[in-house]
């Protein structure tokens, strides 16, 4: 249906903006518009998901997941794809907006927020740095011996490498 509210040209560009948004209209020359991004949904949740994944149904990879999948990472100390949340909480439909859909889980957005850095990144406060280091060294030792008994398994070594990357991430806080 046609909008019941008037649209009027705004700014030097003369962009048509709803008269319901007079303050936004003043900023119109500094805004980018993606005219191809339209959807037939009339609700917030599916609309947000559509904006981020091209589908208003959930379960499809978000744009960041596709980039992570296609381009990988130039940085071996940080995740390829992070989602920074508004301080008031998640957008409608939450993690579907930065989900990996049917791509492997490593391409999902890692959620950060101003009030909450990476989950589980920090060493627990109950564990001292020396204890943490010694525990990891013991873990590394038992994993190495286990991997040596199964030289054919890439997965075991990949998981050991993931613990090393985790340790580097702790030293490179985002």
């Amino acid at each position, binding site marked *: 249906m046609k909008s019941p509210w008037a649209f009027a040209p705004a700014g030097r560009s003369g962009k048509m903006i709803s008269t319901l948004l007079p303050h936004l209209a003043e900023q119109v020359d500094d805004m980018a518009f993606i005219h191809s991004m339209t959807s037939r949904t009339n609700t*917030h*949740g599916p609309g947000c998901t559509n904006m981020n994944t091209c589908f208003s*149904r*959930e*379960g499809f990879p978000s744009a960041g997941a596709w980039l992570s999948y296609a381009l990988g990472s130039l940085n071996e100390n940080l*995740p390829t794809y992070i989602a920074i949340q508004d301080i008031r*909480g*998640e957008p*409608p*439909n*939450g*993690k*579907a907006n930065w*989900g*990996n*859909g*049917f*791509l*492997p*889980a*490593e391409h999902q957005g*890692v*959620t950060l927020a101003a009030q909450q850095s*990476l*989950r*589980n*990144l*920090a*060493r*627990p406060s*109950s*564990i001292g740095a*020396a*204890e943490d280091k*010694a*525990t*990891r060294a*013991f*873990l590394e*030792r*038992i*994993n190495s*011996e*286990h*991997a040596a008994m*199964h030289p*054919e*398994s890439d*997965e*075991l070594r*990949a*998981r*050991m490498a*993931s*613990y090393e*990357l*985790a340790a580097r*991430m*702790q030293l490179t806080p985002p």
Partner: protein
Amino acid sequence: MHQLYGTDDRNPLKAALVLPASLAVLDRVTPIYELPADASEGERRLALARWITRSDNPLTPRVLANRVWHYHFGTGIVDTPSDFGFLGGRPTHPELLDYLATRLLENGWHLKPLHREILLSRTYRQSAAYHIEAARTDKDARLLWRYPPRRLDAEQLRDTMLEVSGQLDRRMGGPGFRLYRFTQNNVSTYFPLDEPGPETYRRAVYHQNARASIVDVLNDFDLPDIAFAAPRRAQTTTPLQALTLLNHRFTLDMAAALAAQLTGSTTEKITAAYTRVLQRTPSVAECNAASDLIARYGLTAFCRALLNSNELMFLQ
């Protein structure tokens, strides 16, 4: 319902009427049916159900038997459980698949006898021992020359950690539990629980999933997006998994619970922990290294490491 090929969708009367019927493309798999346009919803559903389960439709029992096999071996005889068409995988053992499908029909579609037959087979009970000759032609053991090694699934990992720490609440039935809390105003916002208490120590099958919730241990370890039917799970290895399993309160609580249950001398404690977590006794060298760690930082540090070990995580 009407068929619209670029027709004006505001005027559907111009379009051809679609009758309730089976997919014409499958007419060579199983006989087709067509109902009159005014058939009631109940009649339509019944006709579809009968068409899917006709005894001369080979596709349904094959797909079902393949899924049961897939859940036991990690990969199906057809490795694309939801696609038996041109783009799907070829069966590695077509005659076996047809045998299992036939057994399913003979057993009146009951799944338990099929599970039993698979689990009692020599193929299922063989070890995962590695043979270099066999691996040269079939690295991933698709032909099942050994039981394929696999990583525990998200739920299996969580249940296992609860079990080896003696914390698993085996009560059956009743309301589920949640590993998140949520707030509701215009939309619901979900927050993963930072301190999951004993009320959450039940099997993961009792977890009440919410579409928009994130649950550290389960989601990090490839629990599929629950908004989407996932015939197969991804198997990823990520640093986030390492961070979660090292630092999440759940691991720390399980490590402390395990440590609290070990009794006797240090060697006896180490042996008991190895027996519970890894189902074997430690070597002398392992015992010495563990004693060292325990002498300096206590039993919980040692238990935290064991719960993070590859040997617990992978079934070899």
